């Protein structure tokens, strides 16, 4: 929490009135913009941005979910999703924790331009990567770099709820200077008897007192840190190669992959609508209609060149739906690693959870991987 400032001073959150009944839940559709009330420098290239609603509201979301920032940077509209690093057990504020990526337009803008007091347009929250969506007793949390954010949100929530969940929390970083949230994790571990922490740094930092694991997380080290991983529900978030390596190892080691979940943090940006009208802002997750088969929302996917159309339920990938509709698209790995199915999206919004088969630069230009993209609206592909 930021230090108490006088009400009404720039940027300071108006303090909630805890004597009154709880405020209504925040909704992006009603309050499109959030105000930045505090910025924390976590490491030399990671900052946390704390955001508050404009009117008294409480935030409801699953720990691990993301919000979408709608930004205008250098005259270009860019949408970028960031996992909430905050916990829904502290509902007055949300926060995102952002690593500065060399040449990354959004992260550099946030680090250099965003100031306390400024407003941000936000959509969401969304996403299904949350251990509270499928509670278990034993977890293995694997994070690489700023992929720690959803796992931090989940751990903070479990901690605040007095959970005695058995968590092995593994954080991989380039060097001790890049390790995130170690003090807070240590504090939570004092309160949670079954929370164990392991840090893996690729290299030592000059002058650092770090004495944890050195090198890269590999099968042997993982087996030492979590010998009983077969009994744990695994949640992984980090750079695509990191997740791909863990995914490849676990599926090769016979891990029941139904209990493996990963979250990418390279998301879609809104393509400029060309052929079809875009859904209104904020309606990005409004289902077009319900699919007769499951009752879940389904969207319509149209292939511009061939004229084919098919339905894609929200929880299916575009490739699965295309195959189910009897269409042939090129593909190989079906897991977002090889890029064989790469397609240009003419309209619509998807969520991509890839494993390194596509670059953010390509996503920014409107390319997607149908094998690991789920629709958030009706879609038109240049196929």
């Amino acid at each position, binding site marked *: 929490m930021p230090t108490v400032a006088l009400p009404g001073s720039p940027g300071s959150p108006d303090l909630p009135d805890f004597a009154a009944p709880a405020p209504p839940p925040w909704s992006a559709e009603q309050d499109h913009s959030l105000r930045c009330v505090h910025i924390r420098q976590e490491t030399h290239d990671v900052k946390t941005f704390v955001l508050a609603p404009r009117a008294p509201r409480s935030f409801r979301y699953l720990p691990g979910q993301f919000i979408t920032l709608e930004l205008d940077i250098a005259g270009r509209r860019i949408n970028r999703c960031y996992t909430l690093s905050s916990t829904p057990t502290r509902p007055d504020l949300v926060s995102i924790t952002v690593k500065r990526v*060399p040449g990354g337009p959004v992260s550099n803008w946030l680090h250099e331009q965003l100031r306390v007091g400024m407003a941000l347009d936000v959509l969401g929250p969304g996403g299904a990567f949350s251990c509270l969506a499928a509670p278990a007793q034993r977890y293995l949390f694997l994070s690489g770099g700023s992929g720690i954010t959803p796992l931090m949100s989940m751990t903070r929530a479990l901690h605040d709820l007095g959970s005695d969940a058995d968590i092995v929390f593994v954080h991989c970083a380039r060097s001790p200077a890049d390790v995130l949230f170690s003090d807070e994790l240590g504090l939570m571990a004092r309160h949670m008897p079954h929370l164990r922490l392991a840090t893996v740094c690729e290299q030592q930092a000059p002058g650092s007192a770090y004495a944890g694991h050195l090198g890269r997380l590999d099968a042997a080290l993982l087996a030492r840190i979590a010998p009983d991983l077969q009994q744990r529900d695994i949640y992984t978030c980090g750079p695509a190669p990191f997740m791909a390596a863990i995914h490849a190892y676990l599926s090769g080691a016979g891990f029941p992959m139904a209990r493996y979940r990963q979250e990418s943090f390279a998301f879609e940006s809104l393509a400029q609508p060309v052929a079809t009208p875009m859904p209104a802002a904020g309606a990005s997750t409004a289902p077009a209609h319900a699919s007769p088969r499951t009752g879940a929302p389904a969207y319509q996917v149209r292939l511009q060149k061939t004229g084919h159309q098919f339905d894609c339920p929200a929880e299916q990938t575009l490739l699965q739906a295309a195959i189910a509709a009897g269409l042939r698209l090129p593909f190989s*790995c079906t897991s977002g690693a090889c890029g064989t199915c790469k397609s240009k999206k003419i309209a619509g919004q998807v969520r991509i959870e890839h494993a*390194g088969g*596509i*670059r953010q*630069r390509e996503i920014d230009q409107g390319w997607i991987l149908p094998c690991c993209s789920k629709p958030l609206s009706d879609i038109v592909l240049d196929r």
Partner: protein
Amino acid sequence: MTSPCQSLSAPGELVRELLARRRPGYSLEAPFYLSEALYQVDMEHIFGQHWIFVAVEPQIADAGDYITVDLGVDSILIVRDDEMQIRAFHNVCRHRGTRLCASRQGMVGNIVCPYHQWTYDLAGQLIHAKHMSDDFDLRSHGLKPVHVRSLSGLIFICLAEQAPQDFEQMAAEMTPYIAPHQLSQCKVAAQVDLVENCNWKLTMENNRECYHCVGNHPELTISLYEYGFGYKPDALNIGRLQRFEEILAANHKRWEGMGLPSAEIDTLERRVTGFRTQRLPIDRSGQSQTMSTEVASRKLLADFVEPALGGLSFWTQPNSWHHFMSDHTVNFTVLPISATKTLVRSTWCVHKDAIEGVDYSVENLTSVWNATNEQDRRLVEESQIGIASGAYQPGPYSPFTEGLVEKFCNWYVNRLRALVR
């Protein structure tokens, strides 16, 4: 590197005989420039066992950027990974040997073979191979790694199993010289490939002297003092030579005061990873190797207090030379194509925020070295033609102006003597 045709490669006997009878102070015998067998020896022992300069970091500025470089029959893939580290691999799929990336440069997510979509991550690990048996081990089919190091933005690779360890010494000594020019903050403004019809050693020998400059390089000698490369004093030039020595001493004192190391280091003959460096003054305005001698780019490479910083020259054995100025860098890599064909790749870099047409023009930036390269191409091709005739016999080097050529030949002969068995 083990050459697949080792059994057919040069009879070691003949090579050792040629090495044994090399006359110091004289150019090499004709077979060194003509023979296919000697070319194989060069590829195996010189380009296969030493640190070879191949590229500059701005060529792979972002994660996923790659370049490919051909060293003889070997194609090497150099890529920047998601942690912004540089990695190098043999550009060969572990499935059936297909070349993975056919382009000279491009961008990848993971590295995917176009043939059957075998997919490798940027650490070279195989992460996807469809339709293989259940017991197929992905881990034992990773890409074959190649040693790669960046020296303040200059990318060197080494194909040997054990790379020469004295690269570290060169890096330690050269980093203070090169780092101030901040090559990694640059962009490639131009790159020109020139194929010379000559043996690669003639390209290198020609680079190592300026005896030929005054008669052949009208553009280069506007900015470059020929005295920087050795000179025989005579009554006519003694005054100019003395003046040059004074300019050199005064400038070195000034540049060192700005934190720019300038003094000569020469390990050309002494080390496996031999090199030489010196910051040399530039004539007239003292700024840059351009036709006007003034900077070609208005945006300097760093926070320099002034543009007249001369040119930091850096020469490496066996295949490169470089000039770093206040406003741009120009880097040259020499890669053999065959016994009588050589690629000379010149790369000009300016600050990444410099805007073409506003801060610099490619024409003005490149005109001096484009002209010089073209003149040099003609000179070395004429050498090659003469050496191929029956009348050629090794000729004497000038002790005043060709000392560095002799050092190149000595290094070459001594490395082969040490390696050819």
